[in-house]
């Protein structure tokens, strides 16, 4: 009996009238856990019953505690007929199983009925007494913490990042069981809700076990999804990143002394120890928001390979290190290869070197290769065929007998895809995939499985095998440097530096540096030297699925960029259908990519973050929606313009038409640059950017670089061609593209938008936040062409955005962050778009100031940074190079003024095109792009706390309500506040059904109420845990079905997030004791009621 669950039913309020005669209700409550049920007394004739029950005690296995929800049913007692159910409350007790999360659940929870919605509230108290039995063989994984947040949760520090965990469970969907024909919709809905609760509990427990096996204690970036496969079942699957986290015990003070608070970290002085103090850490002062959490990761002085007990690790896993050592001398770039191998070996043991994280501790992410994605089309009806021939017969079987092999089918599918992703990453020269996510789209029996992520090279610092590699690396280091000296392979200087000091030297631009071998690029790309450090190659454009690294240096502001696409397809069945879809997919992706690229260039930007491509399948069409946040990375070259070329040049009017369009495009680019404050340090870019540098420039250029490496000049010339995107106008697709480009309306004044966590260039957030969900369903006419569909779809998204801007106009100036679009085709001719995002308002005055500041400072800083790096290299490679990559040379170049001729090249579109299609043919849908990293704007936020707290105070007037305010946000933080405690994961699934659709205000009224109810239930459960906010909130599923003729509708919603307690920074300043008192207060409050 490892656990005792205790529940007490205190009271109810606002109950519905169940007895028409008396206008009152005789309510009682059933409390059920597993197979045990308790009942309260009937509290007669009241809408606000006071049961004040005894403590109901359930003695259960902790395995059950994890799997089962506590089920509370409120009923109306009826002497003569059956008791009527008023509604139910499911309580996930998982948060109570972890010592660091909540201790009690206490508060008013909405009583929910799947037909009537919320019907009053019930006040309950729930506690768990866990008996410790940590050592026996367990099926449970109590105590493993789960976080939806895709970064290391604030107030924790990562000691180790173990890697990818995944699991899926399959069951029959109760909605499709034979019994569903004879039971009420309510019973069926409840069976479904309960089943999904059970399944997600089980899933979480299983993942927890895997984490414990790996030696971790937490799952970060936990992403759980449902696949409603209809007849073939219900799949609940989850992925996450296993970590070992350590709580940062006290507030800001200790955070700055990592060595103090983490005694487990063995400070190993590396070979270059003496130089360490001299190594300037360029990560700079982190933003105030992140400061406490992150500063602990970045040892402020030394790059010492701190790692937990490296010696033991070594003895435990001796095999990996040797391999990498042996192959160090591999051909072209031995050093680079070595660098890769070091962490690679750490990752090779893992089946999948994937990470669901999108934000990383400083120094963890070294290089980014580009986006990798894989899709596959599967037929669902095939699942049963091998095992049991007849679907009908299996339903009558005990499904436990075959569910055993069912997950394997799905597992195999996902395995396939993950393997593909892994190999894509490899072809980009990367050993890991970050910002990894998986999704499905199902239509009838066709299912598209998708996975995507960003290929990257990670530091071994946080990885299990890290210490081992470090040892190895250190011993090999001198050798490497030596070889560099003699061989002088291209870029090797860079590599050698990066080998030893990558993590220390260049957080600002390091992640943009290409991880792949530049002589063997897996796709056509134009490489240039990094615009920040000038030492390593960077690509012209970088696409990623991760958030913008905090330390990245960005010019100007970012914006949301979307590519939208609709493609019709013929109605078909089974295999034919699946083949048709998989044939369409590559083209869809290719076009989405082109659209993204065009839009990116139109905005004068060169990188995309948070890229999310969603492909949705319907019976007669495919929808593709790609969303990302565009930014201008200072380290990357300035994007070329868009060049329109006509193929039939003779006609004068035609040429005029083209030149008009060209003018329009150029104007838009200029306007956008102004709008997003993109004024890159032009001079620097000029030199490399212009196709044929003037002799003088060239010579200078040579001087600055030639000493460091002989072949730089050559490379510079070969990559000097400016990458202007060429659109050929008589290509109908191009016309469409241009149209799409120019119809995207700009965001209204005062608004910014992005789909990442933070908006570069804006820091001074006020505490005003507004999370919202908006859903639209659009009915199409039959027989639309692709173009027509595209336009409609695009307009739908645009109008939705416009509506959002209008709705939130009172928050101006504000930024819509984490704009998360989901598209679906619920029925033929219906398109559903759902958006969840948060609007954050910020202080305008300071923004301007800041903008100026960062605008002015960035280039300078970049140079200083280079300076540091260069000098550092100098010391390091004194024997090799004859020095003189002086900062002076750089600044000289930098200050050279020259008007930037709009140089446009009739280059690579066609090339890209063909190679693209080649790639697609290989079914390797690898959207790739380079990388970037620099230090800057983000960090400049630090001088702002004053302004922030001021605005906080002004917003404070809010409190006196009798219902506690619970903030919700899809972000992992709350501006102006500090999260002091994570209370556990919120993962809720609701079904709502109506057979009186008109009476409930039609489809909109129905869904509006339901979403509001879901919010209310999330808030209530968070408040009952003692929290005051949900972070990393997301609505993962919103399946809406209607049948207006029958006056019916049904909707399923799945939401998740992390319940937290936050404290305003202004309050923190006043009393550092506050948080403790706050928590005790909540638990006390629980006891009191």
């Amino acid at each position: 009996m490892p656990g005792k669950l205790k529940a007490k039913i205190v009271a109810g309020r606002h109950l519905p009238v169940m007895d028409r005669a008396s206008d009152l209700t005789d309510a009682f409550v059933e409390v059920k856990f597993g197979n045990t049920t308790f009942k309260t007394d009937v509290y007669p004739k009241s809408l606000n019953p006071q049961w004040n029950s005894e403590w109901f005690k359930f003695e259960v296995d902790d395995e059950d505690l994890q799997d089962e929800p506590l089920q509370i049913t409120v009923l109306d007692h009826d002497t003569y007929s059956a008791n009527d159910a008023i509604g139910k409350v499911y309580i996930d007790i998982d948060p109570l199983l972890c010592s660091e999360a909540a201790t009690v659940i206490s508060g008013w929870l909405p009583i929910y009925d799947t037909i009537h919605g919320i019907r009053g509230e019930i006040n309950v108290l729930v506690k768990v007494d866990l008996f410790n039995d940590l050592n026996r063989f367990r099926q449970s994984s109590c105590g493993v913490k789960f976080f939806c947040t895709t970064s290391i949760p604030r107030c924790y520090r990562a000691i180790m990042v173990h890697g990818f965990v995944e699991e899926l469970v399959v069951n029959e969907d109760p909605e499709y069981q034979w019994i569903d024909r004879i039971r009420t919709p309510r019973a069926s809905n409840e069976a479904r809700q309960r089943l999904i609760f059970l399944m997600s509990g089980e899933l979480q427990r299983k993942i927890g076990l895997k984490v414990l096996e790996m030696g971790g204690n937490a799952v970060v970036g936990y992403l759980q999804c449902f696949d409603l496969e209809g007849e073939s079942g219900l799949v609940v699957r989850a992925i996450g990143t296993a970590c070992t986290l350590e709580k940062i015990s006290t507030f800001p003070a200790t955070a700055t002394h990592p060595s103090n608070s983490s005694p487990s970290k063995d400070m190993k002085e590396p070979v270059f120890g003496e130089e360490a103090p001299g190594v300037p850490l360029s990560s700079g002062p982190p933003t105030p928001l992140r400061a406490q959490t992150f500063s602990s990761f970045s040892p402020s002085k030394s790059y010492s390979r701190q790692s937990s007990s490296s010696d033991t690790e070594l003895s435990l896993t001796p095999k990996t290190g040797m391999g990498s050592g042996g192959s160090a001398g591999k051909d072209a770039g031995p050093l680079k290869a070595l660098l890769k191998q070091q962490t690679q070996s750490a990752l090779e043991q893992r089946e999948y070197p994937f990470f669901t994280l999108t934000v990383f501790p400083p120094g963890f992410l070294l290089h980014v290769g580009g986006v990798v994605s894989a899709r596959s089309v599967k037929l669902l009806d095939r699942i049963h065929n091998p095992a049991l021939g007849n679907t009908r017969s299996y339903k009558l079987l005990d499904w436990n007998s075959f569910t055993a092999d069912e997950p394997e089918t799905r597992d195999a599918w996902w395995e396939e895809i993950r393997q593909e992703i892994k190999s894509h990453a490899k072809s980009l020269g990367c050993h890991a995939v970050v910002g990894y996510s998986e999704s499905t789209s199902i239509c009838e029996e066709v299912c598209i499985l998708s996975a995507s992520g960003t290929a990257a090279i990670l530091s071994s610092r946080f990885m299990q095998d890290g210490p081992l590699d470090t040892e190895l690396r250190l011993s090999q280091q001198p050798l490497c440097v030596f070889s560099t000296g003699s061989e002088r392979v291209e870029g090797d200087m860079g590599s050698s530096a990066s080998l030893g000091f990558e993590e220390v030297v260049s957080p600002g631009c390091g992640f943009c540096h290409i991880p792949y071998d530049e002589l063997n690029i897996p796709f056509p790309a134009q490489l240039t030297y990094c615009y920040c450090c000038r030492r390593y190659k960077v690509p012209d454009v970088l696409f990623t699925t991760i958030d913008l690294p905090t330390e990245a240096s960005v010019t100007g502001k970012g914006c949301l960029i979307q590519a939208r696409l609709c493609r019709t397809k013929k109605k078909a069945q089974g295999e034919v259908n699946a083949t048709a879809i998989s044939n369409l997919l590559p083209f869809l992706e290719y076009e989405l990519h082109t659209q993204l690229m065009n839009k990116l260039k139109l905005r004068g930007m060169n990188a995309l973050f948070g890229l999310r491509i969603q492909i949705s399948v319907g019976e007669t069409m495919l929808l593709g929606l790609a969303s990302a946040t565009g930014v201008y990375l200072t380290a990357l070259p300035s994007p070329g313009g868009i060049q329109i070329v006509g193929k039939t040049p003779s006609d004068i009017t035609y040429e005029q038409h083209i030149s008009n369009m060209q003018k329009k495009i150029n104007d838009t680019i200029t306007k956008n640059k102004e709008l997003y404050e993109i004024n890159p340090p032009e001079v620097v870019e000029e030199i490399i950017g212009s196709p044929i540098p003037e002799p003088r420039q060239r010579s200078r250029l040579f001087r600055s670089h030639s000493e460091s490496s002989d072949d730089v000049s050559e490379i510079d010339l070969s990559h000097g061609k400016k990458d202007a995107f060429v659109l050929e106008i008589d290509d109908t697709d191009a016309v469409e593209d241009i149209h799409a480009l120019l119809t995207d309306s700009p965001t209204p004044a005062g608004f910014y938008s992005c789909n990442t966590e933070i908006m570069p260039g804006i820091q001074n957030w006020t505490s005003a936040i507004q999370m919202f969900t908006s859903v639209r369903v659009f009915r199409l006419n039959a027989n639309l062409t692709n173009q027509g569909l595209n336009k409609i779809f695009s307009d739908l998204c645009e109008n939705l955005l416009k509506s959002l801007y209008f709705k939130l106009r009172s928050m101006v100036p504000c930024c819509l962050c984490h704009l998360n679009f989901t598209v679906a085709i619920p029925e033929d001719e219906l398109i559903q778009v759902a958006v969840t995002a948060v609007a954050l308002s910020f202080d305008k005055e300071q923004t301007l100031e800041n903008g100026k500041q960062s605008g002015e400072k960035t280039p300078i800083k970049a140079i200083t940074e280079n300076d540091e790096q260069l000098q550092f290299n100098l010391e390091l490679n004194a024997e090799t190079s004859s020095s003189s990559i002086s900062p002076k040379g750089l600044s000289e170049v930098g200050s050279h003024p020259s008007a930037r001729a709009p140089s446009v090249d009739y280059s690579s579109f066609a090339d890209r095109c063909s190679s693209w299609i080649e790639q697609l043919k290989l079914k390797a849908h690898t959207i790739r792009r380079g990388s970037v990293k620099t230090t800057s704007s983000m960090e400049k936020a630090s001088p702002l706390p004053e302004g922030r707290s001021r605005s906080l105070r002004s917003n404070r007037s809010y409190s006196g309500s009798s219902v506690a305010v619970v903030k919700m946000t899809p972000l992992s933080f709350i501006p102006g506040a500090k999260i002091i405690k994570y209370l556990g994961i919120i993962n809720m699934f609701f079904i709502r059904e109506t057979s009186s659709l008109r009476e409930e205000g039609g489809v909109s009224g129905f869904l509006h109420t339901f979403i509001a109810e879901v919010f209310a239930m999330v808030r209530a459960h968070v408040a009952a845990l003692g929290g005051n906010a949900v972070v990393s909130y997301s609505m993962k599923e919103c399946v809406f079905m209607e049948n207006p003729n029958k006056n019916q509708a049904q909707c399923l919603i799945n939401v998740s997030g992390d319940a937290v307690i936050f404290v305003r920074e202004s309050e923190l300043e006043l009393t550092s004791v506050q948080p403790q008192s706050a928590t005790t207060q909540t638990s006390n409050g629980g006891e009191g009621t």
Partner: protein
Amino acid sequence: MSVELDVFVGNTTIMDKEVYQLWLNGYTVNDAVKVRIEGGVMEECEASAEVLLSDTMDQYRTFQMCERLLHHPAKLANQLLFQIPPDRQAMLIERYYAFDDLFVREVLGKKLSKGTKKDLDDVSTKTGITLKSCRRQFDNFKRVFKVVEELKGPLVENIRQHFLLPDQLARDYAAIVFFANNRFETGKKKLQYLTFQDFAFCAGQLINNWTLGAVDNMMEDMDVDLDKEFLQDLKDLKILITDKDLLDQHKSLVCTALRGKTNVYNEMEANFKNLSRGLVNIAAKLINAKDVRDFFIDLVEKFIEPCRSDKWTSIDMNLYLTHYTNSAHILDTFKHHAVWTRYMGVIKSCILRLYHD
């Protein structure tokens, strides 16, 4: 091609004051959109008519969902469905319970019954206020009436607590409830010149002085009904007009005091007995519920109109009533000083309020 479903839900419920007012005013969505377009929101925010329509529909839906809660404002504060900041809640309630003076004049003093409700379309045509808005206002009156009818304690306070209304609005509702309960006639042509605030003022006077609650024991008594005992006692005042001597004496006292101080002295002197009879007769009849209803008509007919035709100013009126009240106390044989004071205090302030120059 059409938008089939369009929903926006914020964690903090977004409510636009302007749209709320349009909704309260009973505008249809399309009319509201027109008004908003004319108001220039579109230019301000670079929006299109489509966006406005979507926003308006959405807001209307939110308000409809909230309406149920607004019927019991206390619930608004502890419901979980909408997260609304307290200041917003207060705004919602206040505006929901606000009413049009034009409308309230139409139903003031009428029984708040189904019959009256049926006649609301006439009221709507007459006042130009939409039927929907009329119904809301009427239902508000009725709801407040029903809740406080049976409650003990001070009327205004009860209303304020149960409906979380600001002080002034609570007083207005107290007046409406009081008028409805006593069925004061306010609709006659002669009373048309009076505003709701005039009546509300008088109601306040009556509630504070003539109800049971007005005398000591505030807690146990009710504010809605007039003090029966007091009404009974008022009959005793008849002596002021039935006793010839008293009447003459009273007149001469008042005339002496007023001589030379007013321009309408002659008219006053000539009319004294009529005026005095009017006021005292009103007092004496108040014991009959039917005559209570005519209280305001009587005041106007018997006193205000004669004075107005004689072109009294408010100052004249004030002077006259002051001395008229005070002189009665000097009369030797007049014993009912307390009742007289309680009666005349209210009458005087009411007349002064109702007398428009």
